């Protein structure tokens, strides 16, 4: 499928381009936003300029959706989370503070939090244990397949590979599995305090490793 990501850059219109590519009637604005910083995009959104939101979606929509799907294991629910995240950005752009990091981080944080809320509210009607068994069995191979951009994927992968296995497992089970650290501890049969510390030290180590591997963690758009 040709997503907006392709479509907006690629002059060849797909069959749905007239409706799928918002703001095509406003090519100047589109060009502006394609090179705009996070802050520039959010200013556009605050001015209710739809192409600005379209550009935010083009840049980050795929990642937001992938993360929500990883946590929720449902494309339908991930669709819902993705819509909420971007509609909320449209309605409340001032919640994003460019001084506090990249737009990507902001959106991913929202998406994760919303996905986890949904997951936990669904817990009663799901057979949590079933999912958990699967989760535990598969923990350990996932992060490396989930780097957001091919250009930095290898570097993130290297960083992740260098992480001690116990830290990596704890992070994966919490972040992608949607478990609290207490749940992770109970699943692994480890003390809660240990898991709590592993998550924190793992994230710190990952950051240092990413920096070492040349990944700009506080990456912002050109």
């Amino acid at each position, binding site marked *: *499928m040709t997503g907006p*990501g392709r479509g907006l850059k690629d002059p060849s219109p797909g069959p*749905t381009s007239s409706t799928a590519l918002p703001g095509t009637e406003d090519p100047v604005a589109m060009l502006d936003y394609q090179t705009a910083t996070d802050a520039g995009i959010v200013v556009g959104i605050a001015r209710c300029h739809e192409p600005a939101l379209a550009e935010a979606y083009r840049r980050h929509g795929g990642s937001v959706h992938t993360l929500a799907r990883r946590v929720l294991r449902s494309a339908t629910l991930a669709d819902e989370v993705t819509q909420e995240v971007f509609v909320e950005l449209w309605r409340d752009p001032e919640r994003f503070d460019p001084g506090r990091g990249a737009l990507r981080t902001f959106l*991913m944080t929202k998406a994760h939090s919303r996905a986890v809320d949904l997951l936990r509210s669904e817990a009663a009607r799901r057979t949590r244990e079933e999912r958990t068994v699967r989760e535990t069995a598969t923990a350990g191979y996932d992060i490396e397949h989930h780097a957001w951009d091919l250009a930095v994927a290898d570097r993130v992968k290297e960083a992740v590979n260098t992480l001690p296995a116990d830290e990596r497992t704890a992070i994966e089970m*919490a972040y992608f599995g949607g478990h609290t650290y207490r749940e992770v501890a109970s699943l692994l049969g480890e003390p809660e305090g240990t898991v709590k510390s592993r*998550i924190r030290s793992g*994230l710190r180590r990952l950051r240092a490793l990413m920096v070492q591997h040349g990944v700009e963690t506080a990456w912002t758009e050109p």
Partner: protein
Amino acid sequence: MDRAVNHENVAELLGAYALDAVDADEAATIEAHLNECPRCVAELTQHREVAALLANAGSDASAELWDRIAARLAPPGNPPPAAVVLDAALAGALPRRVSERRRRARWSAVGAIGAVAAAVIALLAVQVGRLDNRLTTPDQQAQAALRSPGADLVALKTIGPVTGGSAPTTVADLVILPSGSAYVINHRLPDLGADRTYQLWGLERGGRTVSFGLLGNKPGAVAVTLADRSSIGAYAVTAEPAGGVVRPSHTPVAVSGPQRV
């Protein structure tokens, strides 16, 4: 709990919190601490940046999903977001100043405002106060101001839908004295709940929105000070959360027509 101990306990949890992996009661403790600890905020920000790098695009964002998002941006029948309304108001769709009935002055810079994309909002020094009523009631002072020869009277009117709709009604007046002292006189603004307030805005010709202060949730006559109104192209009133906001977050309940220098 001892402050330093609390800091250590919270800091230990920041990694898990960044991954939404703490219980609700822990989250509440952490959030309270974050309000007063920049160090923890900085650490949390770093954790979140790292986490955000772990999940990948995998594929492009779907165009079909974008269509569904775009469809939700301006549901038919709902009022458009504040900025659109303000721009439309400034584009001359609104009534003239009541104090200048002689001719409709089309303010030439009006169109430019809508085009200016800058939305950086400065909350300028704002002085707001209910009138001192040692001698007269606020209402009486406002009425006196109204009769003062140099006073400007600006009607604040409701706005219908941007395209068509019901005729605007005057819900409040803004009386401005040459000194910059001004009074908002409420006629028909409904009372708000205790958790909300009306807020008066000046819309600068450069595109910025300047707060002229909070009017309270049951405004009668309220005194405000318009420190510098030379650049103000129009006025607007919004209903906001009780503490006020730095940038209007709601569709205005009333706006003025374009103002001339």
